[in-house]
């Protein structure tokens, strides 16, 4: 696969520490397009070895608006189904530039290891030194060891190490859309973290044509209702939830994921003056809110914004899904922040909210029917589009994305192919 790809798949066998590489077959791309279309195929191929498959969307990391997404595909310890979790912020983009389009991680390692994916090279190394560290310390550790603060880290904390079913794969320091307990899978495999960094070049079949179409698409997206809105507060408002007044006093800024017009993340300062413009002298002054439902849920429990975000931060450090913490504490009738905090290391119970679908319920439905929601998610996960932004922006239509995929790769993608892939991955 020559264009918009690194043309490489790594098969990482944790049981033997052997890593093999394959090319990304153009016929596979013609048939399955990319993203979840291909991670699904790779999962099926290696399913006897309990694989975790990481994949990039066909358009991830490009000038296509909101092309921020990569995904993790694996069998969820919570649902026992094949599920997909979104990798946003800068991690989805970084995987695309790491020199691999897909990573299949199979088998279990007998000792803690980490996977360092850089410039088309995947290396497994001993993680004894970092095992036991919380998520934040682990991210700091690998960035220091490899010498670059731009390294993107998919990492588990104590929750994953101790095989909590609610363990979440975190992105750097922040919560991700992993609502499937994939953190537990990392823990079972003794895989502490995956670090990504790449300085690759993605070539384009028709560069000028592609970029021109991206520009036109952005122009239309910018006319949409989200053009001047920002942050998790305004996103909540579209869900009929008013968190603005509650959250605003601690908001420091709103942050986008890679090339995503609407910033779906909000940074709050918890131990620092929120309106500070200069660089804080504190090393860890706050928290980036990436998960709207956890935020809204704790608010509904009656917690202050400060307490809520401190709890979210605790969850992120521990590497546990804040939604699970919320639900199980709610069920137990605990409402005090300190009680909730105390429950984190020993959290047990059954989640009732776990959905049976394949796509992470991290993405709100914004009034779409479940079928419509699922279809839009499938499209996002195939092409590598931010799964929240695609719901907000109908301009990112299937036709436009197919057209961009065709121009960018020089392959002819038809709506029939897309239909087939969607049918296959949602069945």
């Amino acid at each position, binding site marked *: 696969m020559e264009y918009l790809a690194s043309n490489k798949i790594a098969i990482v066998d944790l049981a033997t520490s052997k890593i093999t590489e394959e090319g990304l077959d153009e016929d596979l791309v013609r048939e399955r397009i990319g993203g979840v279309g291909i991670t699904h195929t790779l999962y099926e191929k290696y399913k006897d070895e309990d694989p975790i498959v990481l994949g990039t969307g066909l358009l991830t990391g490009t000038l296509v608006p909101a092309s921020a997404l990569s995904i993790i595909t694996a069998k969820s310890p919570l649902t026992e189904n094949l599920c997909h979790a979104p990798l946003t912020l800068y991690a989805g983009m970084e995987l695309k530039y790491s020199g691999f389009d897909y990573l299949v991680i199979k088998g279990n390692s007998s000792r803690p290891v980490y996977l360092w994916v850089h410039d088309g090279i995947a290396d497994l190394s001993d993680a004894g030194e970092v095992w036991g560290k919380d998520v*934040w310390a682990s991210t700091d550790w690998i960035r220091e060891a490899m010498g670059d603060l731009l390294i993107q880290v998919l990492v588990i904390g104590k929750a994953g190490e101790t095989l909590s079913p609610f363990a979440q794969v975190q992105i750097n320091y922040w919560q991700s859309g992993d609502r499937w307990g994939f953190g537990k899978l990392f823990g079972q495999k003794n895989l502490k973290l995956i670090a990504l960094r790449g300085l690759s070049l*993605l070539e384009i079949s028709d560069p000028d044509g592609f970029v021109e179409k991206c520009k036109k698409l952005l122009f239309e997206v910018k006319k949409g209702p989200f053009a001047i809105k920002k942050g998790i507060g305004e996103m909540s408002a579209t869900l009929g939830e008013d968190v603005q007044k509650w959250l605003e006093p601690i908001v*420091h800024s709103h942050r*986008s994921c*890679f*090339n*995503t017009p609407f910033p779906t993340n909000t940074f709050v300062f918890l131990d620092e003056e929120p309106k500070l413009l*200069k660089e*804080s002298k504190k090393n860890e*002054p706050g928290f980036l809110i990436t998960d709207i439902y956890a935020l809204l849920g704790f608010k509904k429990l009656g917690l202050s914004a400060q307490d809520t975000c401190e709890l979210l931060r605790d969850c992120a450090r521990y590497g546990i899904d804040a939604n699970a913490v919320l639900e199980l504490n709610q069920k137990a009738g605990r409402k005090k922040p300190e009680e909730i905090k105390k429950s984190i290391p020993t959290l047990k119970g059954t989640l009732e909210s776990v959905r049976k679908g394949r796509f992470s319920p991290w993405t709100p439905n914004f009034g779409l029917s479940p079928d419509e929601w699922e279809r839009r998610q499938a499209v996002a996960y195939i092409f590598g589009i931010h799964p929240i932004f695609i719901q907000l922006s109908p301009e990112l239509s299937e036709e436009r994305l197919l057209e961009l995929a065709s121009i960018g790769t020089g392959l002819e993608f038809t709506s029939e192919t897309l239909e087939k892939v969607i049918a296959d991955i949602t069945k």
Partner: protein
Amino acid sequence: MGIRIDQKKCVLCMACEVACGYHRDDGFAFLSSCIMVTRGREKKDYFAVVVKEEENLIIVRPEGLEIRKLGAVGEGREKEDASAKPLLLRQPCDLCSDREEGPLCLQFCPVDAIYLE
């Protein structure tokens, strides 16, 4: 005339950086972009956007703009040696002079944070 950034509007999405990389390499890459989002202080939520010009480094921080003479690193340092060979890594911003519609970073900024001054 040069590229300037309104930090209040910027959401650090890096669209400008990819657009600039495309302008240089005809593909998507970040190594040769002359506009960069410095993301190294993630935990502190402290970011800057840097534009490399012919003679200056334009550094836009939340608290304001700094224009730093290139080659004059820190106080009391000599200017760049006049016989130094260029490194040819990140070329200074040429305002996309070969593009009819002007700078690509500006056209791809989704929040209109980039302007010319």
